[in-house]
């Protein structure tokens, strides 16, 4: 019984340690995202690179509460790549934003792996379910 308790506590500690590592990955991931996002916005404001809609038009639409008519944000890797090569500032900013949104999803994905390694079947399936829900939000996001 006592042995079991010790083993359980050790498993808990391992879980915490790995989550802590993930949390640090998240922190530096955020910094990287912010750098990419800022680079994109700076390109736009300094009139470097290409833009589909002028900043003035976007700001005016935002201030009047209107919807904005501009090209949709990139979703495929090809779109991200082409946009970045063209120095499309919105695509670069969007890449940073997409990466930022992906960070918690990545964390959940890694936690699925952690529970698999711990052979915790219940929590493997629970975290996997969370991951599926998160991904379906993106996959079905447009039609939702």
């Amino acid at each position, binding site marked *: 019984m006592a042995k079991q308790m010790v083993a359980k506590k050790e498993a808990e500690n391992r879980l915490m340690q790995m989550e802590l590592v993930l949390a640090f990955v998240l922190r530096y991931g955020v910094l990287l995202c912010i750098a990419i996002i800022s680079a994109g916005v700076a390109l736009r404001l300094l009139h470097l690179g290409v833009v589909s809609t002028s900043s003035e038009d976007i700001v005016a639409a*935002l201030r009047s509460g209107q919807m904005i008519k501009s090209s949709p944000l990139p979703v495929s890797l090809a779109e991200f790549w082409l946009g970045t090569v063209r120095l499309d500032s919105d695509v670069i900013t969007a890449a940073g934003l997409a990466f930022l949104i992906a960070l918690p999803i990545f964390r959940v994905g890694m936690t699925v792996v952690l529970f698999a390694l711990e052979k915790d079947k219940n929590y493997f399936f629970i975290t996997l379910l969370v991951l599926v829900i998160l991904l379906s939000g993106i996959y079905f996001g447009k039609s939702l």
Partner: protein
Amino acid sequence: MSPISFQLLLLSISFGAGIFGAVLGLGGGVIIVPALTLGLGVNFHYAVGASIVSVIATSSGAAATYVREKITNIRVAMLLEVATTVGALLGATLATYVDSQKLFFVFSVSLFFSAYLMFRKRHRETSHLPSSEGHWMARALKLNGRFHDPVLRQEVEYVVNRVPLGFFLMLGAGIISGLLGIGSGVLKVPAMDSAMNLPLKVSSATSNFMIGVTAAASAGSYYVRGDIVPLLAAPVALGVLLGSWFGTHVMMKLQVKVLRKIFIVVLFLIALEMLLKSFGISVR
């Protein structure tokens, strides 16, 4: 207004929202959305899109702090995230069918509720009451835990009660988060500490741990839908993130009690203005 001054304005508003959010333990969203919609006239959907991104940024940036405290209950978090993420997707979907006027109304109601919960919490002690043997699901799913309470200077064991009720309330917190672009920590904490009898400290840490994942669920759908405008979301995310770091590191010595009282009044006034707006009455 020129694009550059608009960016600087957004940056400074968000910086302030981040400081407030960090010092008071709320996200910045509760301040950002009213500031963007009521203050700058931005479309509700875009304000929500920008706010939800900032929620992810702050929550991810602070995740290490919460895990390091070793009071986050990862199993409770993961189980409840099933409910919050489903709720967030529902909320994000609902947002497309609900017009701004009604969104103002819902936001106003949840602000009144937040203000009430903060008001009720103002004299709260952080220790918790010992409870019975807990819910059978909590035992089956290994939710019960222990943590070191620095005030009592001892290990405190706790059991988790009313798991289905907590799960159900989290579904609601998720819907509000996805619909209004806020972290809804203010709703998550009572779901855990009042409904499930988790110690308050464990509830807050676990809630903060969950917020980013909840937000990511709806943010993904806001992103593919095109409700995240880079020129709006970028300065807001940056400002809130910097503000919350500043808030946690520099402003810790501030008199939180006084600030909390001021904030309750501010929250109340914003809620009132949003309520009036939902009936088509503009104060300005």
